[in-house]
């Protein structure tokens, strides 16, 4: 079961552009939830007007993907440089983007970009380091933002109207790890999204996983 609690949804209608102010809390601890992605889902007709392809970099530093969660719009290009002095093998079997960058080291693949056309969540792994896990959130448009350490984020340039707002987090206990909510945006005043997210415990494999357990009775 998952729980979603909507606290406040105040809206001011505007035909021009509206602003979305986001504050996410951990339902259990009350702390801000970072690395959550909030996307305003526009109807297909409006999407093209709000889509701008990007070029971003997901670095690999000390056997971790940095940043751990990257938000891009569909059609953006991502490069995966290797800042470590060992080799990495980046892969994804996510339906949104299946790709791999076989073993490469520092300085290699610096100019190589993967293009993420399809919206969705791409889970990044390294075949050498099983515990390395990174996410690329491919949004339908550019109206998507990642919360900061305090669980806050601001999204501007949202056209006035009533849209579904999707909130995704890697550890969200919700179905498909997303929570969706319909908000009305107008120009007069920013829309506020305050959510308390129920998070699962960190299911990531710990470093140097102790697979060969020696528990005998």
């Amino acid at each position: 079961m998952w729980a979603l609690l909507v606290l406040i949804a105040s809206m001011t209608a505007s035909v021009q552009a509206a602003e979305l102010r986001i504050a996410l809390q951990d339902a259990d601890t009350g702390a801000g939830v970072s690395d959550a992605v909030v996307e305003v889902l526009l109807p297909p007709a409006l999407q093209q007007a709000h889509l701008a392809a990007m070029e971003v970099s997901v670095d690999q530093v000390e056997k971790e993907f940095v940043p751990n969660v990257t938000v891009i719009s569909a059609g953006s290009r991502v490069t995966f440089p290797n800042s470590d002095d060992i080799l990495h093998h980046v892969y994804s079997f996510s339906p949104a983007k299946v790709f791999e960058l076989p073993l490469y080291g520092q300085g290699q693949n610096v100019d190589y970009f993967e293009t993420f056309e399809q919206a969705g969540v791409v889970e990044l792994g390294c075949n050498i380091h099983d515990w390395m896990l990174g996410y690329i959130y491919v949004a339908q448009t550019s109206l998507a933002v990642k919360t900061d350490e305090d669980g806050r984020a601001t999204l501007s340039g949202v056209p006035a109207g009533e849209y579904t707002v999707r909130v995704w987090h890697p550890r969200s206990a919700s179905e498909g790890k997303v929570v969706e909510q319909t908000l009305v945006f107008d120009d007069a005043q920013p829309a506020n999204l305050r959510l308390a997210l129920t998070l699962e415990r960190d299911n990531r494999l710990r470093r140097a996983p102790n697979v060969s357990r020696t528990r005998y009775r």
Partner: protein
Amino acid sequence: MAQFSFRSFRTRLLVFLLALMVPVLLGIYLFVNRENNQYTTDTINSYLDLGADVFDFTREEHKNTLLTIISTMTRDWGFRNAFGTGDPYTIIDAADNILLRSLGAADMMLIAAMDGEVIIDTKTQGFERLEGEWLELMNRAASSDDGIGDAIITLQGVPYQITVIPLYLPTPVAWIFGGFPLDNQFTDTVKQSIVSDVSIVEYQQSAAGNGLQVIASTLGQGDQQALIEQLQFDRLQTQRILLSDGEYGTLLRPLYGQDGDPLQIKAVIQKSYNENIENLQAFQRVLLQFYIAVILVSLIAVVLLARSFTRPVLDLASRVRRIEAGDYGQAMQVPGRDELSQLASSVNNMAAGLAEKEKVRDLLGKVVSHEIAEELLSKKIELGGEEKVVTVLFADIKGFTTLCESSAPEAVLTVLNRYLSEITRIIENNSGVVDKYTGDSVMALFGAPLSRGNDAENAVKAALAIQACMAELNAINRAEGMALMEAGIGIHTGLVVAGNLGSQNRLNYTVIGDSVNLAARLEGLTRKYNTGNIVSDASRAQAPDFVYRELDLVQVAGKSEPVRIYEVMGEASQLTDVRRQELQAFADALAAYRAQQWEDATARFMALQETLPSRERAMSLYSVYLERMEYLPRRNLPADWDAVFVFDRK
């Protein structure tokens, strides 16, 4: 009730030893046996406990190996790629590939999506979504910290050890179940570790009846059947089950299900008592052999001991019997310083003492007469004596001096011994005792040490016998060309002192006194009177049944009283008439002599002299009186002349 007695010391020792040893040995045997049985049971129990632990350990190890293999293999890039294709045929091939690579550690693989939808199943069990125990296992793994779980699940009738682990791509995208069957191969593997038989037994409650079934086993078919028939499935303590080659300690370990569940699977660990019993029996055999050896050695030792004891005892006994019979024999040697050798030593000493005594008695009988020897041996020997009336006989061999001059000393001794032996024999035959030999004369006692009542008579008889014997001995001498002998015998009866004479260290039993001297004098007088014997009046009075002729009335040297002396002529019946007339004529002549009727007396003696052969006339009794009467009439004899002839020299 008959008293039981041992026939030999050896038997007694043997029975004693056996009575002592057998209960002890038996007790030890039973104790060892009991301890060994207990030890065997304990050993088997600990074997089984250990075996059960090792069984669990082995299963755990197998499980971990399985987990390791599944975990490692599924992170293989090839498998990730294959899984990434999403194509079930590719994935099932990749799974089969992993099973092949596991070298038998894994036998089946099932991959399900995170929501439980079956993606592939190498055993093609047919369900599209996880169900039952599979679903329970998945949920248990999902709620665990590390997403790992395990269970025993019966799969197509075979219990499988199943583990489950998520497939990370890189986040968990699927559940990978891997498993191996608890089959004969598994039991064989475990058996190698625990050196015990292992079976997997399933209990199934069904409408047809509750039944046990062996799913896997290291036992043969027959033993599996025996196991099923005897096994108490709900008993967790060690039980004993009889298989084809003996009893097995049997311990159960639950694998699946709990008491009361319709389906239960348990592992059966079994260890034969035989191995330990074989050791036990080997030990018993060794123990028995040892016992036999101990008993044999003991028996031999006892026999030797008994022999070392009984042989000297038997020897001693026969020695004592021989001693009893008078054979003192060789001294017996028993080495050592024990009681037996002390006893043998005592017997030897006793025999030596007896032999010594016998020797003394023998020697005594030779040195002194038999009676004196007995007297000496029967009483305490001490100096001193007793007064008693004894007849003393002196016998002297006349003509011996002539023999000494004419013959070699050896011949003289031979002849002398011959005469003395005869004289001695005669004396002893007549109850006399030879007191001593003095040169060619013999002193004999009649009435000492023992009186026979007719001692004088015996002495007279002896004297007559000696005189008769001289004729026989002379016949021998004549044949050998030796000089002829005559005996002179003096006999007197009177009071003497009889006893041991001499010093404290050297004694003689003898008699002393005037009577002895007188007897000696009388013997000497036979030379004067030319008679064979002279018997004193005292003796004649004690032996009146013989014929005597009075010879004279004499006063011998050292004696004041005159003694009437006689010559014994023989027993009355043996005397011829001529002899009687001669004796009467002598008596008449003697009477005339005493009456100083010298002429008449001379005539009478002359007439008697005429009866003798001419060569004997000069040395006859008659000539003695004829010579006297040549000078007596010229002497001035007193009026009361008593006709006593005085011998003032010895």
